[in-house]
């Protein structure tokens, strides 16, 4: 899998995992926020 990423993007695996992981992490956090927050009541 990691090798596949490396061939696809020409990047070291750790760069893809760390940067991609960070983007995914913040996206998921903000999705949770969207599901949690319902405006003022």
């Amino acid at each position, binding site marked *: 899998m990691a090798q596949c990423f490396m061939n*696809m*993007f*020409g*990047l*070291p695996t*750790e*760069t893809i995992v*760390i*940067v991609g992981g*960070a*983007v995914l992490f*913040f*996206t998921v956090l*903000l*999705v949770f*926020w*969207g599901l*949690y*927050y*319902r*405006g*003022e*009541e």
Partner: protein
Amino acid sequence: MADIATIGIVAVYCLAMIGIGGWASKKIKNTEDYLVAGRSLGFWVFVLLMIGTVCSGMSLLGVSGLGFKFGWPTIWEQIFVPLSIAFCIIFFGVKLHAITRHTGYITVQDYLAHRYESPTALRTLSAVAGIIVSLIYLVGQYTAISIVLMWLFEIPLWLALIIATLVVTIYTTIGGLYAVAWAALIQSLILILGVVIMAPIIIFYAGGFTHVNEFMASVNPSLVQPWMSEGMVFTPAYLVSFGVLLVIGLACAPHVINNVLAVKDARMFTWAPLLGFLIYGVVMFLLKFAGFAGIVLVKEGIFTLPNVPNAQDFVILYGIQNAIPHVALWSIFAVIVLAAVMSTTDRLMLTIGAMFSWDIYKKIINPNAPDKKVLLISKLIVILSALVTMIIALNPPEMLAFLIWMGIGVMLSTFAVPLLAGLYWRRATRMGAIVSMASGLIAAGIFGAYYQYVAQLPLHFSFYAVLLSCCAMIVVSLCTKPTSEHVLDETKTGWYIHCK
């Protein structure tokens, strides 16, 4: 001189912006309409206003430039800057909007004065600091506008500056935040579509994304690492301080945070953080990748950058010139950069107008001033701020780039702690806020000058200043009399975000 198509495209864009100002001016009945658009901003206008306010022309050119110079270790900028939109909405916007429904704040200084029971001292200190930082930023924006106009039309600097100043000043002065917000809608759409189309063209021109990365790795393996090793700039420790600077520093900038006061309905804060993060994230990543492509294009001799100190900032302009060899299409890119610059410039000018006319004139100098007079002063200050910064930009100071970085650092050091402590810590007091703000401001100046003129620091200079500001807030607050309970309840202070 540019051809008729180029002049036509840029002229249509400028006239459209002035047209929006004329349309918006009919909606202005009072100061609230002018400064917070009658608190009527809908979802997409708000999201795109936030993107437009955060995305400046300097960042548009600088993002690719930084990628060209340092490679993948700078990619965190592409995560942190879009994240500042989400941070601003969630940690400042939700509460401030809830409080504003009952208090009618016009500026964030209204909140600070109320929360810390400091109608004069803290309001004046924060308004003056906000005006200084915004003016520094404005000079940078006008310089960026003139760089693009000079590049495209081959006209002298003074003429480029006059054209840019006239267009922005006309629509901002007559239309207030209505004009700024609707102009931002158009500008952000131009920016997003333009970057999504043009950046991939540059990347494919350089051989494709994978080839660009492989080429960078062959030139220098550290260019494709997620951070740099010790002794270099973007080390993991430095990136933490860089993240704090960009995420929190931009989020608490007066021209960004004031946008949340103009939203029609708090339910818009539900998905605005995610969409702001993702949409602006895509734009920022593509710009960075275009900067990476520039490494291939320069090393392979496709083009040569000019022999100037900030040569890397020209990489995207030269990339467009070579990948899309038609001058009429360059003018579309020029409109993209103009849109990015103007969307920040107009908001900054309006924020300066608001801080002076509302916080200093109406709240301190002449509390009995009629609404019409406050509105008139707002407009005059918008024009004056444009004139002052245009004159400075005619002969930009040598340390301009340093001043702009100082600007974000000062925003973080000055506003972050008083705002966050004010919203979330009931023990934060007036004296704590004043000492915290003043010490943050002074420390940012000292650490910034040390970093610039004496020696490199392992962390971004603003990080030391914000730590000092935080310590000052805690120590002084614990040593002074607490804020009255009814004010803390009115301002919904406490360790929660969602106000039920």
